[in-house]
């Protein structure tokens, strides 16, 4: 595919204090030669809740996999001032909580407890701390009663919430969610929206659900063909119909 150069739409943004995440000129090609990211730059301020939208294949998931070093492209990724290098990797993975689209990929242990404890255990925390963190994380997603349940007995909405708990238990300073509302019915979706609204953590959320974007995120980033084509206040971006249709999006 030819890299298309997109005009960057600039919107005005409020000032921010202290960056949680800085990405500078990130390039990445998959081993088969397909270039998925062509110079992506943006930053997230502490407390930001940002939506990442764009058509299928835009590179959203690829970008997200870079933010905690699962993929490594050319360019700079800094989390809370720490450069993403091999030595920093464990620390950065503790700070960035990545939740994948399909909760069945995220919940790989037989019981809920074991899954939520996986992260803290691998950070080398003592047993008492692990238990405390698991309890706090389950409390945060209101699933304390599910501690000893088997993961495969849960409904999709419940699995989604447990998946979020699995990364909350690592006390991340940045939460990254890949299409959290896909496949949920209206009620489960509403519960998830409320949960995300209440969580006091910086988050970057990729989604195709424009209604979710409008309701929940003050700021939106549009990606297409491996580039950021717009970054600004959600209500301004959603007004720009030409921009939206140019990138396969729709007003909610």
């Amino acid at each position, binding site marked *: 595919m030819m890299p298309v150069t997109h005009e960057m739409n600039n919107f005005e943004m409020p000032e921010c204090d202290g960056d949680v995440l800085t990405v500078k000129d990130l390039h990445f090609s998959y081993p088969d030669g397909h270039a998925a990211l062509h110079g992506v730059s943006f930053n997230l301020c502490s407390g930001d809740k940002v939506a990442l939208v764009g058509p299928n294949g835009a590179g959203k998931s690829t970008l997200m996999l870079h933010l905690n070093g*699962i993929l490594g492209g050319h360019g700079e990724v800094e989390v809370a001032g720490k450069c993403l290098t091999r030595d920093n990797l464990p620390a950065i*993975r503790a700070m960035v909580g990545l939740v994948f689209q399909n909760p069945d990929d995220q919940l*790989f242990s037989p019981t809920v407890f074991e899954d939520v404890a*996986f*992260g803290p255990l691998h*950070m080398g925390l003592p*047993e008492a701390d*692990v238990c405390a963190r698991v309890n706090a994380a389950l409390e945060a997603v209101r699933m304390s009663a599910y501690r000893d349940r088997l993961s*495969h007995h849960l409904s999709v909405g419940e699995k989604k919430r447990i998946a979020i708990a699995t990364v909350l238990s690592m006390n991340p300073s940045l939460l990254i969610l890949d299409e959290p509302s896909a496949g949920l019915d209206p009620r489960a979706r509403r519960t998830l929206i409320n949960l995300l609204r209440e969580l006091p953590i910086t988050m970057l959320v990729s989604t195709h659900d424009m209604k979710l974007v409008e309701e929940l995120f003050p700021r939106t980033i549009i990606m297409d063909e491996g580039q950021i084509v717009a970054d600004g206040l959600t209500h301004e971006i959603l007004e720009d119909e030409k921009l939206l249709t140019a990138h396969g999006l729709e007003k909610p």
Partner: protein
Amino acid sequence: MHFDAFDRYHEKASFLHRLDPRVKALVTVIYIVSNALLPDGAWLAFVGAWIFLIAANLLSQLGTGYTFKRSIIALPFALIAITVLFSMPGKPLSSFFFLAWNFTITDMGLLRFVSILIRSWLSVQMAILLVAVTRFPDLIHALEHLRVPAILTTIIAFLYRYLFVLTDEVFRLLRARESRSAAEAGNRSGGGVLWRAKVAGNMAGQLFLRSYERSDRIYNAMLSRGYSGHLYTLNPHEMKPGDYYVTAFAIAVIFIVQLIGRL
């Protein structure tokens, strides 16, 4: 998730449910080994072993008949052993003609056949009881602590977890195939056997690819939560004095059963 039917665990608050899974696994294995060691025709010992089983059933609060009902699954295999009826030298009991041959059932043959069936039947029931009173994840922990290599127990844990996801996928695939298995009036439908085999093979290939790619995503999810090649688990189980007493008592009883069988 619709195949919860796979779970053999029965939630109860019984004595057996609370026992440490290691104890349950160990006693089950010893019991099965003991059955295999009992000589043919040790009727009294078989009765002893059976009483042991019934007592365990009672302690599980599942009811005396619980394991009995499910124990039929080992029966079809008994066909394999049927030849010992005729092949053991001994006093002829009865004979009959079937097709061109004359079959003679001997007393030793009958003795051996029945002994094999009883051993198998008792052992299967104990295994059924084990998974009915132990959650499978706890059983995996037990295996871990009984020194089964970690790589095997983790594969088993993953297998257990994704068993449900993948069998769901298979059933959806089978449904899709079924719903397109149509016929029109007057046509001989169904395709050839080879073609049908190929479709089944395609489904297996499809399932393989999806599983393979899923394992990639799971690996990513594990990495982002700090996995670096070593798996750590908490040991949620602790052997209490009671667990030791139960183990000792059970082994003693099984030992007595052996003695009875050899007297």
